[in-house]
């Protein structure tokens, strides 16, 4: 991507993400996803299979985050803080910016093995009922 269009794409993405984040914070300050009958949708995979997916607990983790409860956030979905750092970096990398990070970190960030291993591993481990894996399940 050329530098000009790169900056434009980044500005548009940043504006859209800020609007989405503002809307998300507003909704999560007013609605509690743990309340029965809450308008916030649950996980379809969990609904059909009774098993957790890697994203299960994400809404409750974000709810805990906007209420400043970091321990509860980690209990609901420990992947959230990692994604909040990694996804913006991935977007920058995708637009062609050179990240001011060590080479090994950038290589891991765009490594297929790392992400597939992380997501599938997390998916499997959080469904195991024993300690310490049960800690990865939401709740």
């Amino acid at each position, binding site marked *: 991507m050329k530098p000009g269009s790169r900056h434009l794409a980044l500005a548009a993405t940043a504006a859209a993400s800020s609007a989405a984040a503002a809307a998300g914070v507003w909704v999560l300050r007013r*609605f509690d996803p743990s309340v029965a009958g*809450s308008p*916030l949708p649950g996980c379809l995979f969990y609904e059909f299979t009774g098993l957790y997916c890697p994203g299960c607990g994400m809404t409750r983790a974000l709810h805990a985050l906007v209420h400043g409860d970091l321990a509860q956030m980690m209990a609901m979905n420990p992947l959230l803080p990692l994604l909040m750092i990694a996804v913006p970096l991935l977007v920058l990398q995708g637009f062609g910016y050179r990240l001011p990070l060590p080479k090994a970190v950038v290589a891991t960030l*765009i490594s297929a093995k790392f*992400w597939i291993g992380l997501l599938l591993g997390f998916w499997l481990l959080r469904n195991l009922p024993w300690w310490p894996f049960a800690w990865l399940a939401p709740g």
Partner: protein
Amino acid sequence: MNQPSAGAPASPYPNYLAWSITVTVLTFCLCCMVGSIPGIVAIVYGSQVNGKFASGDEAGARRASENAKIWTWVCTGLAVLGLIWMIVSFFINGASFLYGDALQEFQRMQTR
């Protein structure tokens, strides 16, 4: 990682990895499974591009790049659908959550 070593020409075929990983992660938070499977397919194809190019398999690298592009777009489309579904279901459920009592009261008055 399949990064080309210093001095080797970089692959002219994009692997779309940053994009495909981003949308795959997002689909897990939005519509679960449905969008994540094409996302993982895109990541697998994307990861083959640089390696195939480095080993001289130019046609293979181009094919892997094209496949990665297609599956990344499929995953992106499903992520957008998941987002729309989330917003629509929020408004539908939100209406009954906020005004459920009022709606029931209204229905009782109608049937009376």
